[in-house]
């Protein structure tokens, strides 16, 4: 029962690569552009281009590719099941039937839909994981705060919302360790989590959830006191010890990103979508 081993979200791998050294604002904007483009990609050509670029990013970041992929492991079974679902259930009126199995028909449209949507999931995951692996939480916060500042004009408390997001990311690992302890403690008392039917399995989760939530709320109360004692008042009148500065490498990164998005948009528009 190693829960923390497969969590790659919110983990930062320090390094000195060209990607690590970029300004967080550049990285966040680039990741956002990549994700938005991903949502419009509906052909294999576009995904091929995305795959090439993502591979190049992983290579530049100097992070072992196995590390990025490890986080994918727990969701593989679901991906396979959902791919099968799409294959048999997704239908368009004029599609070719590949083969029939019992009452189900596997259609060509279903196959493409399953493929594309699975690819989209894989790349979404890789891009976000890459962002958090190469950017420390502190610079991620600084970058997000500075990027979301304009939202203040329409009355959204952007700095507070970023703080919430950072607390969430930060606490995932802390709570994972706590969860592991709780599960091990229950197993030591003879609870077999992997045995029994649906109702029995669900019942066994209750004594795990209650201590987890109570522990989390205790931590929350402590954190509230700690933040209030330090007079945290959100973003108002706050200054930074280290201000963010764009460098020449950010400029070249922006240029690369612009060129790549241009090509990708061209591919997305010109190539006929398969679904």
């Amino acid at each position, binding site marked *: 029962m190693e829960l923390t081993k*497969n*969590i790659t*979200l919110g983990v930062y791998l320090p390094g000195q690569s060209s990607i690590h050294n970029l300004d967080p604002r550049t990285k966040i904007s680039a990741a956002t552009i990549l994700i938005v483009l991903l*949502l419009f990609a509906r052909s294999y050509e576009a995904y091929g281009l995305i795959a090439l670029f993502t591979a190049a990013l992983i290579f530049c970041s100097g992070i072992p590719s196995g590390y990025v992929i490890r*986080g994918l492991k*727990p*969701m593989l*079974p*679901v991906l396979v*099941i*959902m*791919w099968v*679902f*799409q294959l048999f*259930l997704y*239908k368009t009126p004029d599609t070719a039937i590949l083969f029939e199995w019992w009452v189900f028909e596997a259609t060509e449209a279903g196959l493409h839909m*399953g493929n594309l*949507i*699975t690819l*989209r*999931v894989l790349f*979404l*995951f890789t891009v*976000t*994981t890459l962002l958090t692996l190469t950017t420390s939480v502190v610079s991620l916060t600084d970058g997000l705060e500075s990027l979301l500042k304009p939202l203040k004009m329409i009355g*959204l*408390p952007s700095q*507070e919302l970023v703080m*919430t*997001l*950072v*607390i*969430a*990311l*930060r*606490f*995932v690992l*802390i*709570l*994972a360790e706590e*969860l592991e302890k709780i599960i091990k403690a229950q197993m030591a008392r003879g609870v077999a989590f992997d045995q029994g039917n*649906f109702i029995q*399995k*669900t019942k066994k989760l*209750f004594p*795990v*959830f*209650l201590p*987890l*939530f109570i522990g*989390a*709320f*205790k*931590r*929350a109360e402590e*954190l*509230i006191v700690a*933040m*209030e004692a330090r007079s945290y008042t*959100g973003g108002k009148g706050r200054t930074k010890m280290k201000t963010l500065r764009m460098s020449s490498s950010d400029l070249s990164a922006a240029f690369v990103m612009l060129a790549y998005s241009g090509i990708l948009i061209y591919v997305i528009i010109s190539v006929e979508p398969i679904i």
Partner: protein
Amino acid sequence: MSLSVRKIVISGILGAIAILLGVTRLGFIPVPTPAGHATIMHIPVILGGILEGPVVGLITGAIFGLFSFLQPGAPFFADPLVSILPRLFIGIISFLVYFSTKKINILVARVFEAPLTNIKNRISPGLTGALEKFNGILPYLLGGAFGSATNTVLVMGMVTWRGYLPAEASISIGVLHGVPELIVAAVLTVILVKGIQRIRTTEDKS
């Protein structure tokens, strides 16, 4: 609009639990259906709405939605209209149902005070105790149930509307998953709220 430290911290930590349940797959309960699991990842959002109000429910829902968009558990969640938008409503609906049930409860108790005491005197004290206890947990039970139903209905609705699955498939998945999810969510909400309220009252006393 500004957020209090309390709202920031509680939404953050509940968001962390939602993410944690997702990455560890603990938030998925194996159910004997084709898709294989029901989710309880939305329970932190329900709790946020019930314990801290609609704003915390909304923010926790947004974190949960953002996470399930960026690290999708099922392919159609890689679409913000399916993964993020429906989740914003879970906490708000939970709060509204919880709050109005509580108010109605108080109102009923006040308006029908005389006939209620009359009935209470006639039935056995054991039964009245049980009924009162049930009445006490009813707002949480309904809040949890409606929050869970909001998740199922809106997500499957968006999945159908965006054309990922045909309506019949969505409805059958919705029923097969939604019903166990609803029951588990309702029961867990009651247990967790009671547990958290207990530590809060002991902390206030000390």
